[in-house]
């Protein structure tokens, strides 16, 4: 029931399939180099069909993408490894699309989508986590450039990224939400230093990024000066919407691993653990059905606020089930495979050890919005409960307690 692209009648599924066949005819996946194929796909408007014509899309409803993806998958075409470039696809691209100039869109979107250029996100700071708007990284105007100095944290892929989306404070004398500006930053520029940030699993998925007098041309600003907070909302909104695609099978998450251990090791079972497992299984099934409900809503063009519930429930379930796994395993859980510092490119909850899962799951209720912030959002935006008295909205940023 989408109302997008009403001007011209959208191509039918058959027409879309024809476009895919045309692409495949001119670029046989079996013989075309991967990057070249992806570029051609982008140019054919089949990258993200809901993007405008000329920017990798056809101005179609989002759901039409399923037709394209299915056809291409059937033909054995390479994909753009979306998990590796998730920040670019999910956060940078929608923001560039909405706030970027046409030059910026033309420059950034194609290599972003093909994965030739990896993106990362320079938002969080040691002193500004949940309260992102309190950020203190400064950007000072100097001719046609901005000079950026500060420290960012929790930056995944920073060590592989070519570009970053960045929010920085350009005016400390106004209230905190008003003095922020949004930039695209070249991660190869002088003054950018990336250090791995080791986490309690022993690994370092993330980085700290130190910015010391990094020059950013004003042409890499996204949106107006001082409008960075509003621009960032687009980025963050897209971070949380990640439900969709296929229905998830029962026991697909880590509950499946716990259930398998239970089935294969009768000697570990106790009545108390049985009760706990059954409760967790039911909770996992409830979470799965909620995601399915949400998927059906999105497919029907009725997005709802239940996505935050899904993230929230996911974090709690992962934590509870992984805690259960260790209790079930007993002695074996006292052993941890390896604490050696490593640099994984993505999180593999299902492939890791139970101990890894237990520890890594602790991050699920922190990353991408803490469970506490999600509860605030649900209470205020969904339930309409009144906000708390705020004292930080009208005071100049520089006068706030830190």
């Amino acid at each position, binding site marked *: 029931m989408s109302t997008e692209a009403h001007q011209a009648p959208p191509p039918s599924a058959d027409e879309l399939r024809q476009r895919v066949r045309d692409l495949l005819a001119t670029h046989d996946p079996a013989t075309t180099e991967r990057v070249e194929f992806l570029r051609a796909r982008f140019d054919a408007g089949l990258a993200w069909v809901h993007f405008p014509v000329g920017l990798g899309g056809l101005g179609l409803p989002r759901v039409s993408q399923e037709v394209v993806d299915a056809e291409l998958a059937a033909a054995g075409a390479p994909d753009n490894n979306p998990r590796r470039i998730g920040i670019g696809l999910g956060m940078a691209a929608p923001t560039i699309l909405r706030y970027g100039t046409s030059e910026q869109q033309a420059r950034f979107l194609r290599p972003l989508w093909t994965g030739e250029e990896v993106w990362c996100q320079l938002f969080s700071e040691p002193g500004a986590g949940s309260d992102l708007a309190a950020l203190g990284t400064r950007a000072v105007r100097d001719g046609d450039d901005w000079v950026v100095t500060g420290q960012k944290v929790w930056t995944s892929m920073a060590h592989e990224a070519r570009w970053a989306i960045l929010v920085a404070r350009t005016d400390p004398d106004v209230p905190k939400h008003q003095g922020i500006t949004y930039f695209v930053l070249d991660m190869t520029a002088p003054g950018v230093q990336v250090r791995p940030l080791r986490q309690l699993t022993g690994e370092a998925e993330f980085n700290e990024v130190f910015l010391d007098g990094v020059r950013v041309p004003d042409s890499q600003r996204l949106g107006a000066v001082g409008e960075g907070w509003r621009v960032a909302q687009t980025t963050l909104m897209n971070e949380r919407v990640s439900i969709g695609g296929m229905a998830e099978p029962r026991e697909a998450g880590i509950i499946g691993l716990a259930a398998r251990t239970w089935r294969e090791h*009768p000697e570990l*079972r106790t009545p108390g653990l049985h009760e706990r497992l059954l409760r967790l299984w039911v909770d996992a099934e*409830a979470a799965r059905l*909620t995601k399915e409900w949400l998927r059906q809503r999105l497919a029907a063009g009725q997005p709802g606020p239940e996505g935050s519930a899904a993230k929230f429930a996911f974090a709690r379930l992962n934590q509870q089930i992984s805690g259960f796994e260790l209790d079930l395993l007993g002695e074996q859980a006292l052993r941890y495979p390896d604490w050696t510092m490593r640099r994984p490119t993505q999180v593999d909850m299902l492939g890791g050890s139970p101990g890894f899962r237990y520890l890594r799951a602790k991050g699920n209720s922190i990353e991408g919005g803490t469970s506490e912030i999600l*509860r*605030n959002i649900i209470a205020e935006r969904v339930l309409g409960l009144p906000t708390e008295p705020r004292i930080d909205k009208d005071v100049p940023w520089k006068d706030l307690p830190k």
Partner: protein
Amino acid sequence: MSTAPSTAHDHTHTAGPDLLYSEVEDELRASVRALLADHCAWPTVLARVETDEPYDVGLWRRLAAEVGVAGLAVPEAEGGAGASWREVAVVAEELGRAVAPVPFLGSAVLSTVALLAVGDSALVGDLASGTRTAALAVPLSTAPDAAFPGGVRVEPGEVLTGAVTSVADVLPADVLLVPALGEAGPALYAVDRAAEGVTLTGVSSLDLTRRLADVTLRAAPGRLLASGTAARDALRGALHTGAALLASEQLGLAEQALATTVDYLRTRHQFGRPVGSFQALKHRLADLWVGITQARAVARYAVGTVADGDPDAGVAVAVAQSFVSELAVLATEEMVQLHGGVGFTWEHPAHLYLKRAKADAIALGSADHHRASLAGLIDLPGVPAVR
């Protein structure tokens, strides 16, 4: 406890039923809600529960006649609307939301399923039109996989003798559907409430809005509906569908408990602020909303599988009763607590919801019972019996 032909971990169940509400269902909901708003506001309910007529039979007739709620899942040929249990579930939500004292569960669900199973079109039609109501004569706490009840015996001459305690919706009923044991095993009989030998004794019930009664039969004349496996299946089917629909009622209870509490906390001031602005309460209500969001998906899935005859219905209903029962109790307990003193008084509706939710949690098998049944269905067995 039943055993599962196919286990859950073979990953066969992926998409399954439509979980959303259709436009028709939205309209149905609006009609039911409007009628209940006019005739079933909670002060009316509270005033009624201590009278001699705890059920509002007039309201039930009206719901049946004006909105057709009694026969939604009954085929048109048998006098119903030819819709499905999915639509009935929407009615269950609304009746739960209003803690309406009407014989919906007993007549339009439990009895109707049983009669459809045994093919008694005449009586089904009467129930569907709301001109008569029936009750299934089992204790309200009976679980779908319970043993066939043995409290009533068939005696020579097709008369029934015995007793059944804690029967729901029987006080206003015209007909009792009575599971009984005859010489040939299980049987299901229809007994006229007005017949000789039928005695109902009202019970002071935890749930004020669904009054129970004890049934005593002394050589009461019965009409055989089914016997043997057919009787057993009819009873089990009725209780199973009932458990699915009950989850929707519980969802409605929980939704209304949350909505009422949110409204109260938005307007009530303490310490110079709306109470609803205090973060600890906000987080608890957010948790509740997350739970209700999940309960909705779970309840819709359960009734969807039942409506579709999906083989996953056994798991789905057990999951629904495991999950939604406790959620509804939590929601109504929070309703009482977060209303402070006023929620503890008789004159505030919170207790009607609390009592209904707690009784519903025991009805048609407790959450604990359904989790135990689930263990067999999904191949998560308990401790080996050797110890």
